[in-house]
């Protein structure tokens, strides 16, 4: 996401990450650290959902954009249904042979659903618009 910073120039942006350290990468922007959660970790998931819901209700974003993984997917789903934001999923460039499992599920909650590898684009999506590299 850091490599996409020029796309946000002049916009009011809040960042959410599972790594509190990344706050240093986005000086001058609001930054929210959240709990990391994997698919099978129900307790962390509950905390994460609470944190994300609170952030979304407070921020009321027009658009939510994520490169994954599970926390990003949860955030897009909440953004769609809680604050009716426009949602953008950019599947991680780490997935060059198949979409991530979060990326596959993102189809249902992403208004713009992208892969970063041309060989993974499909008739029904995801679309390929380029990559961060």
């Amino acid at each position: 996401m850091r490599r996409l910073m020029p796309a946000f120039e002049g916009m009011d942006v809040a960042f959410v990450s599972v790594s509190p350290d990344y706050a240093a990468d986005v000086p001058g922007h609001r930054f929210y650290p959240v709990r990391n959660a994997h698919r099978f970790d129900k307790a962390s998931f509950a905390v994460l959902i609470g944190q994300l819901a609170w952030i979304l209700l407070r921020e009321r974003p027009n658009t939510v954009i994520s490169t994954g993984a599970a926390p990003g997917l949860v955030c897009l789903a909440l953004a769609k249904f809680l604050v009716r934001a426009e949602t953008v999923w950019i599947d991680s460039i780490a997935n060059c042979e198949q979409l991530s499992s979060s990326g596959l599920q993102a189809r249902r909650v992403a208004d713009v659903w992208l892969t970063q590898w041309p060989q993974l684009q499909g008739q029904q999506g995801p679309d390929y618009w380029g990559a961060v590299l």
Partner: protein
Amino acid sequence: MIFVTVGSVMPFNRLIETMDRWAAARPEVKVFAQIGGGDEPHHMRWARSVTPAEFADLVAKSTIIVAHAGMGSIISAAEAGKTIVILPRFASLKEHTTDHQVHTAKRFMDRPGIHVAMSDNELPEAIDAAMSSVGAAHQLLPRTAPDAFVARIRAVLLSGASARQSNQS
């Protein structure tokens, strides 16, 4: 100095143990390892995690980087113009949930500045190859995504914002 990094997510003992043996055999080379949740090495300096600033500093000071096949490591090396050796995590060894690092390693193996070891046996040879290629100039990767991609993403963000404003008015 060789900077070894496994990312923050999961331990990667196979890389750390291999590098620990390598460091024991090559005491003249300084090695620093970021080891995540794995076992502690004995023959190299190490930290479980480093901040993004420390990470950037270690990358800058390194001669080569030895890493798991994570995109964060690959991109950081390319942005700093550093040669990187990557060893992919295997799902079958419970080193990750999927084999996407194997796919990444295969996809990036022909790029200048990237040396791939598909198994830990191949790691010493890949390190030698990387060390001997140091100094060969490869282009620094710009720190931002290509303009065309940035522009398309920006257009989506701008249209989302304007749609919201017109709904509200």
